[in-house]
């Protein structure tokens, strides 16, 4: 028996065995298991996010009013930004929300 024949025999056997494993549920189950940690993390983040959003929504009016009355924003508005302090407060809050969404999307 030549080396090539032996190699072909071994390779043929291994490929035939691998073909049986090719389409079974192993890869799918493994992916599910790998993603399970992420799902738990996403669930926790979701619950915490909903709680945080609820609290933030309850405080939004007060937050908006205090930001609108901020002397810093008044100062910036007076320095020629072209926006009223109320609009600047809205922009800052919107920026914070968008930044949080981007971070969460990357984490997810």
């Amino acid at each position, binding site marked *: 028996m030549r080396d090539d024949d032996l190699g072909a025999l*071994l390779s043929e056997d*291994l490929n035939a*065995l691998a073909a049986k494993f090719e389409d079974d549920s192993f890869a799918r189950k*493994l*992916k599910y*298991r790998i993603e399970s940690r992420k799902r738990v993390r996403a669930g926790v983040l979701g619950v915490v996010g909903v709680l945080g959003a609820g609290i933030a929504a309850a405080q939004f009016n007060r937050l908006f009013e205090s930001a609108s009355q901020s002397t810093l924003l008044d100062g910036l508005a007076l320095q020629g930004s072209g926006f009223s302090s109320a609009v600047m407060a809205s922009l800052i809050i919107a920026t914070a929300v968008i930044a949080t969404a981007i971070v969460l999307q990357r984490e997810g």
Partner: protein
Amino acid sequence: MGKSDIDLVYLAKATHDDDAFAELVRRHQAKLRAFLVRLSGDHASVDDIAQLSLIKAHRAIADFRGGASFRSWLFAIAYREFLQQKRRDDAVTRISAAAAENGIQTGPASFDDISLDLKNALSRLPENERASLLLCDAVGFTHAEAAAALSAPLGSVKSWVLRGREKMRAMLSAPTNENADSVGVKTSGVIYAR
């Protein structure tokens, strides 16, 4: 054109993209499991070893530096897992060996498309020769990849492959058990396919 293994590894590392890793799993799991079945001669624990190896690979993907091919890195993890599992199962193996000595053919009941001759010959090779031969001749690794996977010097892997081939040829060419004995193969109690 599909992404290469290295592209997928970098994608998985940079973006924590599970789909990229899942594609790597899809590409390599079948040959990895087939290699482990032929290496161990027993498929019972192979899926557990393969699963553990792939989960470890997923967790350690950030440590993959690209010095070797992804598949040799993956097979190295699996080989280490196999050795650890083997140590844990040492007592059970000794019992199986004793049963084989007494003429009881042990081993898996399925995945036995391989001829008994080939299976028995493989099982009689020392582990490093069997692993080297399977990686180089069956899986299609280069000697360098096999050396990386087995964490062994390149020269050792080359000589293990050569010795493994010689022994396999001798065992598979032996027409009778008596001839097989002459090349140092224990044949007592083994049922040959011929």
